[in-house]
């Protein structure tokens, strides 16, 4: 993690109970609506409005209006898998560049970018080199990373942390504040146990408990982690075995948003005040859980369809209690 400018750590900016929107209004809003969740070019623009995080398409014309009305926005990208070169995407560096170009084309620049892991396919030095070089193409000053299991391949993350985890605490987890919201980068891809799922581990859980202890319950919390923090499909390892403990520390907060990668598709779940989102990949899609024998790249996707699966997705004005209304539109 790069050294943070002062604005990321200003404690006074944290939203207090009486600050900002009246709590009842914000609470009502949180409960009833997920205003906009969207996807474009393998990236999501997240907009913080009145302490509620919303997602916004990167390519639709009304983005600027939504951003102008917001506290701030940021972009999520995930699973760039630099080093992968097979079907359905022989050039994952090119599609990462396309995603970055989309982000750079936003009329209102996001505050920062988060990458939720699997930067590389095989954690090779030259693959990390490419990630570092290509992500310097973001006009946005800061990119925050959390590692995926592919980034920790062979050395339990040593190389990743020396390059992308600088300044983080413990084994690489971190938190920072940005204009009233508290961001937490968790690591659930180290020290896997045979037969198990993703793991946070005792030390990190203790750190998390302390990290959020002093925060007002009205502080919006955003959690970044590579593997899902809810058990989506155990047979494919889509979950984190000790995530319940982490979520227990977060349940008292009025707004918790958990952003994951790993499964290369958008999935969404609401559990009380906690919203879970998994992101698409900038590289290739993985089929839905259980629809194929194994969770590998969907090689059946033809070149003309690839961009539609790392393309645009809008989800608008959806009641949290009902299934998401998802609208997909292809990039080309």
């Amino acid at each position, binding site marked *: 993690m790069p050294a943070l400018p002062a604005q990321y750590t200003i404690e006074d900016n944290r939203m207090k109970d009486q600050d900002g929107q009246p709590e009842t209004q914000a609470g009502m809003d949180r409960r009833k609506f997920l205003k906009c969740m969207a996807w474009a070019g393998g990236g999501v623009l997240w907009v913080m409005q009145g302490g509620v995080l919303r997602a916004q398409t990167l390519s639709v014309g009304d983005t600027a209006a939504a951003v102008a009305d917001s506290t701030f926005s940021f972009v999520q990208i995930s699973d760039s898998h630099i080093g992968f070169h097979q079907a359905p995407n022989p050039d994952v560096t090119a599609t990462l560049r396309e995603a970055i170009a989309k982000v750079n084309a936003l009329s209102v620049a996001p505050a920062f970018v988060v990458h939720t892991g699997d930067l590389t396919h095989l954690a090779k030095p030259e693959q990390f080199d490419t990630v570092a070089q290509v992500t310097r193409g973001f006009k946005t000053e800061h990119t925050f990373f959390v590692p995926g299991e592919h980034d920790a391949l062979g050395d339990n993350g040593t190389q990743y942390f020396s390059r992308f985890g600088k300044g983080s605490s413990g084994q690489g987890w971190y938190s920072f504040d940005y204009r009233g919201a508290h961001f937490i980068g968790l690591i659930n891809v180290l020290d896997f146990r*045979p037969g198990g799922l993703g793991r946070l581990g005792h030390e990190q859980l203790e750190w998390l408990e302390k990290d959020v202890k002093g925060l007002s319950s009205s502080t919006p919390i955003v959690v970044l982690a590579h593997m899902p923090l809810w058990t989506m499909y155990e047979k494919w*390892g889509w979950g984190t075995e000790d995530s319940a403990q982490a979520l227990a520390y977060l349940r008292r907060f009025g707004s918790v948003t958990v952003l994951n990668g790993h499964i290369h598709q958008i999935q969404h779940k609401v559990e009380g005040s906690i919203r879970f989102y998994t992101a698409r990949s900038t590289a290739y899609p993985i089929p839905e859980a259980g629809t194929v024998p194994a969770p*590998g790249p969907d*090689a059946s996707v033809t070149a003309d369809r690839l961009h539609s699966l790392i393309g645009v997705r809008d989800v608008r004005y959806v009641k949290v209690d009902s299934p998401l209304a998802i609208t997909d539109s292809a990039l080309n």
Partner: protein
Amino acid sequence: MKRPTLQIILSLILVPAALVVFRAAAANSPARAITAPLQAATVSISNFSFQPAVLTLKAGARVTWTNHDTTPHTVTSSDKRFTSSGGLDTGDQYSIVFDKPGAYEYFCSLHPMMVGKVIVQPSN
């Protein structure tokens, strides 16, 4: 009275087992096919699984894993009793010679739900 029955059961078990041993050995080292115990075995890594997941062979045998998936996998000892393969990309192979009898459990350190076992029996 019981002995003949036992012999029949044993021969039913042993004959197919011997055939499997012969075929596997013949494929890898024809010169020693007739008398040698299983000297080499292969494990295919495909669809996020080790096939076969359980392998039984004699001490001194070599096991070679080949990754047929487009996703990398590893062969990692569950209790650090043999050296991990590190990342195996598509088509990559990894071999280990098991000299000491015992049960060697392993898994993929990227996808820990992938587990396998090599059972090594004394060579005599």
